[in-house]
């Protein structure tokens, strides 16, 4: 369509020039007029290319001959020197036309190159931001799909050991192009051979898809497939696609490497934790075992040597050792359950007051002369939670308060409502926890340096945190402002559908 307009414009221009010089009587030397007829040739070469400019040259010669070369209004030429002029005119026209056309082509080409480079640059910048391989792959397929207006898919192996590639990402969820049997076969061939195949190539050139390997220097990471249908890519488009493939390949390598690094870090971390577990557990298990085995052995072997008092003291040692092992085993089982996700909440309505009663009974024996005070505000509602686990948390916290505080000191359990939360606080006047330990104290196997000679596994608070987290609550440590010591504060959510305890008061008459 544009072509036709170009020819029409050229015809019009030649006619106009002829009209101006002939009819308006602007008399020029015929040689100058021939030069002026070069004008439409040049212009059309720049704007419309070779074909149109040759047409302009031919039309110009005809008009020149017909109107300006004697005999006028005839194509015959009386003076043979004009034939030389025609030849020169043609040569000049052809040369300028091809030069101008080439210039234009090069300009277009460099513009296209620049656009491609810019878009590749933008894509590469975008790809370098991804840390997740799936997101990266989706972005690449989306880019390809946008550029070529068709479906695209990326094939990768499921893991390092596999040598079969499968669809890892596709540009559109709606179409399942790329996951068909035939497409997978070609993709796998490309992956193994490292050569492109499919539409427009020498290998299976008649299929609809084009498959290029995603390659970095060392090896091939996967395959990029594009559904071209019946179209064939130009050399430029192909180069662009290959460049995109290269970018995608190096981005995939980068993400994979960073994932591997993360994994390596995790492995190192779990190695460290395992060592800590082993150290702590073996010490914590061996000590009470030594006491048990030693005492039992002494009693069996030298029964007659001991007074009744000695015997009782050995037996007490055995009991203490066994109880200590029992605590350790419970804590270890607790942490294993938490970490493996086996611990399921059995949520029911819990009465905090009731729970505190149970906890006080649990720690009764170890309280000795500590003054335990319970301060409950009257508006405390029932909360939804796992009674047994919450009680375990509170028992752990209470046991810590007792363990790390001197005899005759005060321990306060306080419960109050703040907004839609229930806050439970246990404050003691014990060792206290250093500011820089307040976060780490909830890490498993972490024990503050201050605990010194007091034995423990560093599991109790980690279990507490795990359980409170499961309840959607918060457990935190703060210094006790009334002198020294620690406050452990537990915040638990109060459920909206709460039937408030006080509603029930007096609802039933005797």
């Amino acid at each position, binding site marked *: 369509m544009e072509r036709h307009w170009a020819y029409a414009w050229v015809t019009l221009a030649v006619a106009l020039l002829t009209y101006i010089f002939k009819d308006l009587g602007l008399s020029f030397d015929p040689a100058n007029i021939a030069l002026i007829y070069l004008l439409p040739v040049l212009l059309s070469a720049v704007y419309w290319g070779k074909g149109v400019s040759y047409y302009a040259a031919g039309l110009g010669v005809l008009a020149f001959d017909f109107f300006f070369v004697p005999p006028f209004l005839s194509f015959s030429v009386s003076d043979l020197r004009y034939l030389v002029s025609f030849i020169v005119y043609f040569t000049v026209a052809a040369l300028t036309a091809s030069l101008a056309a080439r210039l234009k082509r090069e300009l277009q080409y460099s513009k296209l190159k620049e656009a491609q480079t810019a878009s590749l640059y933008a894509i590469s910048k975008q790809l370098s931001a991804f840390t997740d391989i799936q997101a990266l792959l989706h972005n690449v397929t989306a880019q390809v799909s946008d550029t070529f207006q068709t479906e695209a898919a990326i094939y990768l192996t499921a893991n390092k050991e596999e040598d079969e590639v499968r669809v890892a990402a596709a540009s559109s969820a709606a179409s399942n192009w790329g996951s068909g049997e035939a497409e997978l076969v070609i993709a796998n061939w490309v992956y193994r051979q490292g050569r492109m195949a499919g539409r427009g190539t020498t290998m299976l050139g008649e299929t609809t898809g084009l498959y290029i390997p995603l390659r970095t220097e060392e090896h091939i990471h996967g395959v990029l497939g594009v559904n071209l249908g019946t179209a064939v890519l130009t050399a430029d488009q192909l180069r662009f696609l290959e460049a995109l493939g290269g970018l995608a390949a190096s981005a995939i390598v980068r993400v994979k490497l960073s994932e591997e690094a993360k994994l390596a870090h995790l492995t190192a971390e779990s190695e460290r934790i395992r060592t800590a577990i082993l150290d702590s557990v073996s010490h914590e298990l061996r000590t009470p075992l030594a006491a048990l085995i030693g005492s039992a052995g002494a009693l069996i072997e030298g029964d007659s040597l001991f007074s009744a008092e000695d015997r009782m003291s050995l037996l007490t040692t055995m009991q203490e050792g066994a109880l200590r092992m029992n605590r350790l085993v419970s804590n270890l089982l607790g942490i294993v359950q938490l970490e493996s996700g086996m611990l399921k909440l059995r949520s029911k309505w819990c*009465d905090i007051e009731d729970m505190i009663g149970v906890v006080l*009974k649990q720690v009764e024996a170890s309280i000795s002369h500590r003054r335990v005070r319970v301060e409950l505000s009257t508006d405390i509602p029932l909360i939804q939670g796992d009674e047994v686990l919450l009680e375990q948390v509170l028992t752990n916290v209470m046991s810590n308060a007792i363990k790390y505080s001197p005899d005759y000191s005060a321990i306060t359990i306080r419960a109050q409502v703040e907004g839609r939360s229930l806050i439970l606080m246990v404050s003691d006047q014990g060792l206290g926890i250093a500011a820089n330990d307040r976060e780490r104290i909830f890490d498993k196997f972490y024990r503050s340096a201050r605990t010194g000679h007091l034995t423990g596994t560093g599991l109790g608070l980690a279990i507490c945190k795990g359980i409170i987290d499961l309840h959607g609550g918060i457990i935190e440590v703060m210094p006790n402002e009334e002198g020294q010591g620690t406050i452990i504060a537990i915040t638990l959510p109060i459920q909206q559908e709460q039937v408030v305890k006080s509603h029930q008061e007096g609802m039933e008459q*005797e």
Partner: protein
Amino acid sequence: MTASDKGARILVIDDEPQIRKLLKVTLTAHHFDIEEASTGEEGITQASMHPPDLILLDLGLPDVQGLEVMRRIREWTSLPIIVLTAKDREADKIIALDSGADDYVTKPFGMGELIARIRVSLRHVAKTVSEPVLRFGLLSIDLAHRLVELNGERVKLTPTEYDLLKILASNAGKVITQRQLLQQVWGGHTTETEAHYLRVYIGHLRKKLEEDSTRPRFIVTEPGIGYRFQMQD
């Protein structure tokens, strides 16, 4: 020790020889006659051939599930069964109690606790004539007149509170699960809301009966299981 305990025959069904030995030695020292079974099948056979006065049943048996053993024994007898369980098996305890166990003891257990449970269970079997007035230290419950007195003073209870107290007190020393309480007080099917009310009513009862409701003397909570009315010594 009351006369009813003396020479009571106890069948221990547990696969762990160490536990059986421990139970045999200590319970024999407390004048009980002990019989042992190391598997569920053996236990069922022994229980049917020589019915004991009480069964101690480990829930973690290797052959037949402890719960299954209990169901099969319960098919023909109501003799008291106390189950032994691991600490973190709350669900098993509740199922065991709701399907007929009289009480439970958590491993590792103190011998004093176990013997107390055994005595309570034996006593509830022996008590054939129901007494019109239950007395627990300073608390007395007159079942005939629905009157409750503490320290000689009348305590006003709502009908629901009274029903709860009556069930707990007439099973004094024994654990009663939440479900058992809900069924006996509210009857039939129970809902989440009623479980909520149960907490509330127990709270009210404690306020009326206990000096310090965070340190209850009468109604003790068994976390995750239910309540136990404490015997007063």
